């Protein structure tokens, strides 16, 4: 009896506590529309020119604006620029900023800001460096007009100013843009459609943006990174949820509205869930895979050995392992992203011939003497790790002497910069992925660079290749560009700066019962134009 009374007392006490707790529940404030988006990474730096991390670019286009923006077909259109002219000899660009551009602190955007920003971006970004190599002057005409003076008729000025992906050429305040390129800009004052609420920033967890009430959008329809950036929600929260399963469950439960990169394993579940829609992010596939070879050391210092490696790669094997659903991937033997204007699959018969015995024979004939091949195999990356395993399996089945160096991705990134012999801490080969927009043309695709010490890690060395890439940048017509792209494809097939293992797209998922108006953008997700039902 005594025990039952105690139990009752306990239950009543618990109920009283719960009721009491209910009284403490905060009263909801005025209903505001908050779009909650789970991103592929956390916003950990505020400076989009400081690092190539895509998330820094996403933060950049939230709070800053750009001079030009690309549309769905990757054609650049004026964004901050109102009017512009190009001289007949294509060496002088005169641009005037449109009316109504203001920083978040209310001061007007001027050409001093633009010039300082272009200089900073041009010193850091590869496309910027390429362009600035031909820029002899950035001249201020007045507070709203400036000139870009070129030494040569470099043809990719507008494409570079409107580029998407990483190191987007956003315009910062002059005082921020004067920060030395290797030091971070720590302020977050832009002139873009959103304002960062820095006091609510929790790196590694959440970044909050509010609508910029003073932003004057363009009149054109939003398309890609161009057109009117009309913000239709009060706030956007970019969340970092590390676990793929949790992200998916949070979307299904309606705790988040937008999932930037759902795991491909879960896409069928999301597609079959009422109220959720899965969509592609743009017309260009988001990723392509690369097997990068080190041209400095044996055996890949010999072109014939590198060419033999083509026969170890069956792109279907890689893509099935990484992506699974063929709706989202594409076998592609072009050095330029397939599905874009300069893609060319010349040499496909050789590049795409998967034959392990033939690979081993060709390597032996080319002088490979069974020396160990050091493969930097990442162990903690959702795509690079399985891709590395597929390659290692093929190499072992072909009878190659493989030394798999298993490292976490951070360690791979550090070790791949080493030029030492593989056995002394260097490497022969590693697997990585790049964004589809980074290979839209041969000039932008820095993995094709063959400038020896100046080339990307792997350090290919071929004078003709770099000449062809430079010619592409100066080509006047589309036909001329396409012809050069074909020549570069042929040259690359011989040189083998890397071997592609296919390309794929990473769809996004969102609550279609709550959100409407999502703008599909190649390279970066954007949050303007989206309406949310509360």
């Amino acid at each position, binding site marked *: 009896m005594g025990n039952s009374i105690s139990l009752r007392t306990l239950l009543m006490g618990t109920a009283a506590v719960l009721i009491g707790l209910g009284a403490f529940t905060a009263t909801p404030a005025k209903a505001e529309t908050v779009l909650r988006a789970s991103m592929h990474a956390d916003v950990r730096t505020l400076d989009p020119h400081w690092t190539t991390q895509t998330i820094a670019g996403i933060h950049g286009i939230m709070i800053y604006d750009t001079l030009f923006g690309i549309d769905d077909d990757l054609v650049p259109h004026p964004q901050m620029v109102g009017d512009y002219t190009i001289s007949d000899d294509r060496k002088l660009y005169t641009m005037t900023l449109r009316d109504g551009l203001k920083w978040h602190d209310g001061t007007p955007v001027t050409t001093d800001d633009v010039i300082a920003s272009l200089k900073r971006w041009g010193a850091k970004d590869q496309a910027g460096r390429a362009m600035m190599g031909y820029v002899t002057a950035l001249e201020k005409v007045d507070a709203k007009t400036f000139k870009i003076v070129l030494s040569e008729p470099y043809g990719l000025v507008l494409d570079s100013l409107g580029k998407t992906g990483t190191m987007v050429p956003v315009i910062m305040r002059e005082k921020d843009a004067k920060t030395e390129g290797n*030091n971070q800009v720590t302020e977050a004052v832009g002139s873009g459609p959103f304002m960062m609420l820095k006091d609510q920033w929790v790196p590694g967890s959440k970044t909050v943006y509010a609508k910029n009430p003073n932003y004057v959008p363009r009149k054109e329809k939003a398309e890609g990174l161009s057109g009117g950036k009309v913000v239709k929600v009060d706030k956007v929260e970019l*969340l970092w949820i590390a676990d793929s399963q949790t992200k998916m469950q949070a979307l299904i439960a309606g705790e988040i509205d937008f999932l930037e990169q759902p795991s491909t394993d879960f896409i069928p579940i999301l597609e079959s869930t009422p109220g959720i829609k899965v969509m592609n992010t743009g017309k260009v596939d988001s990723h392509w895979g690369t097997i990068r070879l080190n041209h400095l050391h044996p055996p890949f210092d010999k072109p014939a050995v590198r060419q033999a490696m083509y026969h170890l790669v069956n792109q279907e094997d890689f893509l099935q392992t990484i992506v699974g659903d063929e709706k989202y991937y594409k076998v592609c033997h072009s050095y330029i992203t397939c599905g874009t204007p300069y893609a060319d699959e010349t040499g496909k018969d050789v590049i795409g011939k998967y034959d392990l015995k033939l690979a081993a024979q060709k390597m032996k004939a080319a002088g490979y003497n069974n020396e160990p091949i050091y493969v930097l195999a990442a162990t903690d990356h959702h795509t690079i790790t399985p891709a590395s395993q597929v390659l290692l399996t093929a190499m072992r089945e072909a009878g190659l002497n493989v030394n798999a160096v298993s490292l976490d991705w951070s360690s791979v990134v*550090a070790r791949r*910069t080493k030029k030492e012999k593989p056995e002394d801490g260097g490497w022969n080969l590693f697997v990585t992925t790049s964004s589809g927009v980074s290979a839209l043309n041969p000039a932008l695709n820095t993995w094709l660079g063959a400038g020896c010490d100046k080339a990307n890690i792997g350090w290919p060395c071929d004078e003709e290749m770099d000449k062809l890439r430079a010619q592409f940048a100066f080509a006047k017509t589309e036909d001329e560009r396409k012809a050069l792209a074909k020549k570069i494809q042929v040259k690359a097939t011989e040189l083998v700066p890397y071997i592609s293992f296919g390309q794929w797209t990473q769809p996004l998922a969102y609550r279609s019962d709550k959100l409407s108006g999502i703008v599909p953008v190649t390279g970066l997700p954007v949050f303007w134009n989206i309406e949310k039902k509360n």
Partner: protein
Amino acid sequence: MTAYIVRRLFATIPVMAVVAVFVFLLLRLAPGDPAALIAGDDATSADIEAIRMRLGLNLPIWTQFVIWLSNIAQGDLGVSIFSNLPVTTLIAQRLEPTLMLMVATLFVAVTLAIPLGVCAAWKARTWIDRLAMVISVLGFAVPVFLAGYVLIYVFSIQLRWLPVQGYTSLDNGLWACIRSLILPAIALGTTYMALIARITRASMLDVLSQDYIRTANSKGLATKRVLLLHALKNAAVPIVTVIGIGIALLISGVVITETVFNIPGLGRLTVDAVLKRDYPIVQGLILVFAATKVLINLMIDISYAFLDPRIRY
């Protein structure tokens, strides 16, 4: 006692010094380079070197160590390489979720484990004992992530009672905060419940076989009084020890729970910082963890004196 506490506090200094040297060297000797991560795919060797210079990573390792140590002596744990925010700010941001999760987990674990352990010992070798130990073994055996996913599926997706993920700060209301902690506390608390229950049972069995318990029973004292006042109090030393160890583990070791339930606590901050080679954060966190563990151990030792009057320092 005061002299003992002061002596123990001073003894933490060499411990912290050893931890500092060890952590600093271990991080620097491990492969990885934050400069290469920042620079990205397109960077040249010169770009990476410029970033290393900016971060001071090009300096000799002992120079870096001396700079770090002198900053620590001034209470400055440094600044994150990536976010450029002070490490103290980052730790402060993550402290509330971790502490709240720790309190909720201990609440779940202790309130279930001690009655379970006492009952198992009281009814030793009966079906109650066996059932209690089956529950306890299951608590150990089921991985936290699996328990987490199952709880999310049942209570968040199917029943829609509780949130899938995230931590709601106390600033948004006590009940909202508790709601966000119920599932993670159950998932994580089950393991600790199992541990504490087993220790409680073992300790109680030992005490229940003592002469003074037999005397208390023969004097006709109520079972409840014998169990709770005479036996449990005397069995408390090992139980308090294991709870204390649990607290120390919970502060730094709840990465999986924080990941599954997306709680922005210190565990995730540590893992993210290690993966990015954000050296100042990792160094700062490990110092904080070490200091916390030393202090918790001290508190456990002090508690012994209150629980067992025979213990004197």
